[in-house]
């Protein structure tokens, strides 16, 4: 892009797009451009603060997974899982291998439901030129119906295991209130098998989309587990080389409070740089742990790792849907007898524990301190979107120069598209995302 090709508006323009859509929650983006210089990029999340970390204090242990689920209606399981694991560490609870597997299965349900929602209804319309999945259905009805059916299977899995798809009720510290019946789980198998095939077709579909030319040398951060693709467990891996036990997380990642956002920003030590979490990070860091069927279909796409174009996160997401179906089938087939006990017994005691799991949109860290009164004394929650927020702004700064010849409305649209790569969950972090562009080229050069 050269400045000669750009429009040269002679007066200052302020363009306002009311809100960034097709994201969970709301916020505002403010861009200021002077000629071809990007002066200011500000992602302003002003979802009203809801103070979860404050009102968790004084609550009983078993209430925590029910309450933290309410941070996000799209990925409640992630909040429940990080809570349960962190509290179990504080209480010295080791769950049985069977409970561990059922939790993995529960997380597969959430990955399917959340990823498919994002792929089919929120993100694919950007690539195909529609304003929503609903309008995309006019021309691509079969595709959208396939997506809805896939999503439904994820939700049904959540219902069987969790009692409810949004804010599951069957999840507790130590395991489950009631183990799912073998019959109910096995009944899902034919649909899971159908889902696996439909998920493979999804990978082929999205990998043929036209991706904007934008690669970046991200510091990719995800969990990494020795034996399996990470869901509930692992160490914190970074593509810059670090392998950090979860207990050391707060020594390497810090939250900062900036004036323009109710969401806190995370940065990584030692140089306080931004980093990327989510499907692209997991895929790059942990691809060797994917199942053969995932690797085969990825191979067929013709794409190669490392994948450093975040617009291709939709492919990573689709691949993870394949993985989730494949893993779910494996676990359901192995489930022969109802788990007894479904909840590991434990004694309350004071203590402290932290844990991170892989929410669909990235690493989710929780830490709790249990007081002498056996109630929650302190809670700290670092959601994935606040970890990605700095990187989103950084991406916009890098991506915007190639858009400057476009009309402002198009710049806004393409910026929204870039933001959607992250599947940001603004509710998690924090509301009204309003995009304004101040365009002032008067004094350019």
């Amino acid at each position: 892009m050269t400045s000669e090709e750009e429009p040269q508006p002679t007066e200052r323009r302020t363009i306002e797009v009311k809100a960034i859509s097709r994201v969970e929650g709301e916020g505002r983006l403010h861009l200021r451009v002077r000629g071809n210089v990007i002066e200011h990029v500000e992602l302003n999340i002003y979802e009203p603060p809801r103070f979860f970390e404050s009102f968790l204090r004084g609550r009983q242990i078993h209430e925590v997974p029910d309450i933290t689920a309410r941070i996000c209606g799209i990925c409640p399981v992630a909040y429940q899982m990080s809570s349960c694991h962190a509290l179990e560490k504080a209480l010295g609870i080791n769950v049985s291998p069977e409970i561990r597997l059922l939790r993995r299965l529960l997380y597969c349900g959430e990955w399917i439901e959340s990823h498919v929602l994002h792929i089919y209804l929120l993100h694919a319309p950007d690539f195909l030129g529609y304003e929503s999945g609903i309008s995309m259905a006019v021309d691509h009805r079969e595709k959208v119906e396939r997506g809805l059916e896939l999503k439904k299977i994820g939700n049904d899995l959540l219902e069987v295991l969790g009692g409810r798809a949004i804010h599951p009720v069957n999840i507790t510290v130590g395991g489950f209130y009631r183990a799912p019946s073998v019959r109910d789980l096995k009944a899902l198998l034919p649909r899971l098998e159908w889902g696996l095939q439909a998920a493979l077709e999804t990978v082929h579909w999205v990998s043929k989309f036209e991706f904007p030319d934008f690669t970046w040398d991200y510091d990719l951060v995800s969990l990494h587990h020795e034996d399996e693709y990470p869901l509930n467990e692992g160490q914190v891996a970074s593509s810059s080389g670090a392998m950090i036990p979860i207990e050391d997380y707060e020594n390497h990642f810090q939250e900062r409070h900036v004036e323009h956002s109710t969401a806190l920003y995370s940065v990584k030590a030692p140089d306080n740089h931004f980093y990327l979490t989510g499907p692209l990070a997991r895929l790059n860091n942990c691809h060797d742990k994917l199942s053969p069927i995932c690797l085969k279909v990825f191979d067929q796409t013709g794409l190669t790792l490392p994948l450093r174009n975040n617009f291709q996160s939709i492919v990573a997401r689709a691949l993870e849907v394949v993985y989730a179906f494949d893993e779910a089938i494996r676990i359901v087939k192995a489930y022969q007898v109802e788990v007894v006990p479904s909840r590991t017994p434990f004694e309350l005691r004071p203590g402290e524990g932290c844990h991170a799991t892989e929410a669909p949109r990235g690493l989710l860290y929780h830490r709790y301190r249990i007081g002498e009164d056996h109630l929650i004394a302190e809670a700290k929650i670092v959601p994935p979107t606040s970890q990605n927020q700095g990187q989103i702004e950084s991406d916009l700064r890098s991506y915007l120069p190639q858009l400057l010849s476009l009309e402002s409305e198009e710049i806004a649209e393409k910026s929204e598209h870039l933001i959607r790569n992250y599947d940001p969950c603004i509710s998690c972090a924090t509301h009204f995302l309003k995009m304004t562009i101040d365009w002032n080229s008067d004094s350019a050069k």
Partner: protein
Amino acid sequence: MVNKTKLAVFKFASCDGCQLSLLDCEDELLSVADAVDIAYFLEARSRRVEGPYDVGLVEGSITTPGDVGRIQEVRRACKYLVTIGACATAGGIQALRNWANVDDFFRHVYAHPEFISTLNTSTPISDHVAVDFELRGCPISKHQLIELLTALVHHKKPTTPTHSVCVECKKRGTVCVAVAQGIACLGPLTQAGCGDLHTGRGAICPACNRECFGCFGPQDQVNGASLTKFYQQKGIPRQTLVQLTRNFSGYAPEFRQTSDSLEEQEESP
């Protein structure tokens, strides 16, 4: 097709779970989109059709000075205003601040409270504007949402239950967790609606062998004092009961009164 019902979905302080319930109507979503003009729904569409709207679904509670003004605009733009979920109908879990010192809450979460603009309270939509109908739940039931949309399209009053969760336990054949296991359960006070009542799979928490914790808020006829007295006689600590009632619908008047009475009781000799 003429004069399709023009629907808008608005969000205030919430988790997005109740709006998501619309997208979770996988079998019905495309039919709903055929039958109703989804004119404004930020979570799902970039297209925004200006009001006025026939129906506005409002998720979330009022927690900022800006929201107090915005809900008035939303009300003016909508012929019928329906609140969806515990946040919009009772203030939500974030209404726990209503019993606390919000300055303390700030200091625990934010390094710079001066950057944040918020109210000391989280209040339901009906505290600010007239509401035509409310769907309870944390989250709402998609079955009730479909019932509501169908009723609106056909200009009928939606049918939603006003009886207690206990009735659903009996229908489902769930053994009472309160009577059989001595678990403090809010079922007798709570409105039915969770799960799928049409297939007899309601009262989802007791079916999972645990207590109902009041997601759907108070039912029509509530005697919180009697129930909590019963649990106290069984040895359940008052503070446990205060927290059980101060939950996702804790700021609904009947639940609020129950938990406040319990607390006052603790202060007396």
